[in-house]
């Protein structure tokens, strides 16, 4: 499925699930998948769980958001080892993912979403 989908990787389970709720409210037709924590109780990120989610995702065109740098490194390794087309954005995880979700729901293309996200890029 080439329709763009969003994935969120957070160090904390609740942050990921919370962002999922926030986005679903304004982007019900956009595929959104989240992973938070190495599991529900432990803070951190896991290559394995991210790789599994990406592999099982119906989306082949993925916009990825993360909170802290170690999540990004795991995402990049998944990017290297997966066949899926994954783009990682260095933007605030809540505000950036929200922007992308709202724009995708409004029918904006992935390329135009990226133009908007450039405006909120940050050093992460």
């Amino acid at each position, binding site marked *: 499925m080439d329709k763009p989908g969003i994935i969120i990787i957070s160090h904390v389970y609740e942050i990921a699930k919370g962002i999922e709720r926030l986005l679903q*409210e*304004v982007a019900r037709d956009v595929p959104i998948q989240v992973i938070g924590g190495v599991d529900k109780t432990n803070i951190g990120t896991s290559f394995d769980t991210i790789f599994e989610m990406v592999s099982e995702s119906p989306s082949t065109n993925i916009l990825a958001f993360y909170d802290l740098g170690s999540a990004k490194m795991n995402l990049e390794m998944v990017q290297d080892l997966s066949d899926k087309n994954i783009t990682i954005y260095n933007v605030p995880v809540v505000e950036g993912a929200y922007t992308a979700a*709202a*724009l995708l*729901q409004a*029918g904006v293309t992935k390329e135009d979403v990226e133009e*908007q996200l450039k405006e909120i890029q940050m050093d992460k």
Partner: protein
Amino acid sequence: MNMDLQTGIRWMELFNEDIQQNKDYLTQLDTPIGDSDHGNNMSRGMDQVIQAIEAESPDSLEALLKLVTSTLLSKVGGASGPLYGSAFMGMLKILKGDNTSSWDKVLRGGLDSIQKRGKAEVGDKTMVDVWAPVVKSLENKQLTHVVIEEAVEATKPLKAKKGRASYVGDRSIGHIDPGAYSSALLFQAMLKSEEK
């Protein structure tokens, strides 16, 4: 416009009726350019306003405005909560300063508060795009139902610069702003409250 306690209560009752009738429409407007809750927010807020009026029996226009201020602030939810709360707070402030103030001066105080709170300018596609022409028309003694309708329609081609609608940028063009619509209902009810 002559506003007093009785007219004010009538105003709130009419506004509540219109909000309840238009609840689904407000939610619809808040869907392509928002989070689909403006109808619920305003419905909840105004239902609480009517309940508070019945429970507290405000005995002056100032007391009514104070009740509306705190109820809308607390019960509306969403951006329109602090915005309508600020609006009525601003109106109350003018009246407390001088209780002989003309009503257009009072509404101007409300508009100033909305803009101070939300930082929106005319043209940003918000409730300000109804408040500003309405207050101006009232100042010129030219406020009619048509002025209000046209103000709300005029939000359609605008690109949103504030609120959740601003996140979809150009895609907000072509949609009426929900907060502008509820403000239009507010002012339509205000005119109707004097017409009886």
